[in-house]
């Protein structure tokens, strides 16, 4: 069976979907990705869907689900490179993918993820400092 590769780049997992997804593949991607986030304790997930030209309500929901699941596992999801036709289809299907971050291309997605991760690190640092002051 086909599998979509999940690449680890530092704190970020990179998924590039090079083929049109079908339901079973999308489901296996969902479970693989969640496993991988847990295993590598990644801080961010970047999904490149620039080659995906067809989506239906099921795939739209899968993207939303992946984002929510990763959020629970403390990883931000960014979907990048969505085709205009795909965006219009998702909107018409009533799936605006509200918990998902989006970016134009992988480069901008990475910048977005890194800034989010860095601010996370900063805030924890601040908290620690506060803790130190408190003691």
């Amino acid at each position: 069976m086909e599998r979509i590769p999940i690449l680890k780049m530092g704190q970020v997992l990179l998924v590039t979907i090079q083929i049109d997804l079908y339901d079973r593949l999308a489901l296996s991607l969902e479970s693989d990705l969640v496993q991988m986030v847990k295993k590598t304790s990644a801080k961010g997930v970047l999904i490149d869907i620039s080659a995906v030209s067809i989506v239906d309500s099921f795939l739209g929901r899968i993207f939303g689900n992946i984002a929510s699941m990763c959020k629970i596992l403390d990883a931000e999801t960014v979907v990048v490179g969505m085709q205009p036709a795909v965006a219009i289809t998702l909107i018409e299907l009533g799936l605006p993918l509200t918990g998902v971050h989006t970016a134009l291309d992988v480069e901008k997605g990475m910048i977005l993820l890194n800034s989010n991760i860095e601010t996370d690190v900063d805030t924890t640092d601040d908290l620690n400092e506060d803790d130190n002051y408190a003691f």
Partner: protein
Amino acid sequence: MVYDISKLLQKKKKSIIELWIKNQLSEAGLREDLISNEEIRQQSEELVDSLVNNLTQENITEVNSPDFDDVKDILSGISITRARQGFSPRETGAFIFGLKNALLELLQQEIKDDKESLYEATIKINRLLDSFSIVTFETFIKGREEVIIRQTDEITEISTPVIRVWDGILALPIIGTLDSARTQVVMENLLQEIVETGSSIAILDISGVPAVDSLIAQHLIKTVSATRLMGAECIISGIRPEIAQTIVHLGIDLSNIITKSTLASALKFSFQSLKLEVKRIPVKTAQ
């Protein structure tokens, strides 16, 4: 005595043309601004030639005979050019009915003494020319419809320009009402342009939209959401106080959309989020 109408017409071709052209030129609504006398003469000669050459004693009662295809082609050509030139239906009608009058006038002159033959010939010519008139009208209307379709296409093209105001900032001024079809065009153009230019901010200026109802608001929200899905930010600007009132009264929730009152303030906001700064250059005073 049975008259052979086709032979008669062939013999009298010259005078038919003259009569017809005289009819056309004496017509009150002659459009000298749209068509010259030479052109009228040329078109008339061509049509009469083709009609007289293809007309026989047999096919005069069969208006659908393939013999008349040539005539109909010429008629359609004339009719379509006239539609594009902006002739009115009455003027185009007068053109073809002028031919009928010319033919009937000629028959009357030629078949003076035999009332019965004249009547028969008149009926036949009437039927034939009526069917030609129908062809003329059909093609005339088709020509006008083509003009209308082209204009509609042009309007949709013109009305949705996507402007690149800065590196990474697109603006889309919307003028006129937004219906579903136009929203589709606006959305497609905007998203396509975002992909092509790699812009991260799009400003949707609605100062030219006369009124916003819940449907238009829905369309706007759709466009904004689609832009967001692409990975760009969408700002709605140019919201007039009346529109703000209507939106709130209709209970439309725009709270998760960035809205600005003017294009200038939207641009300012875009500069801020792209971390750009516009500065005034200090003027050096003359010493």
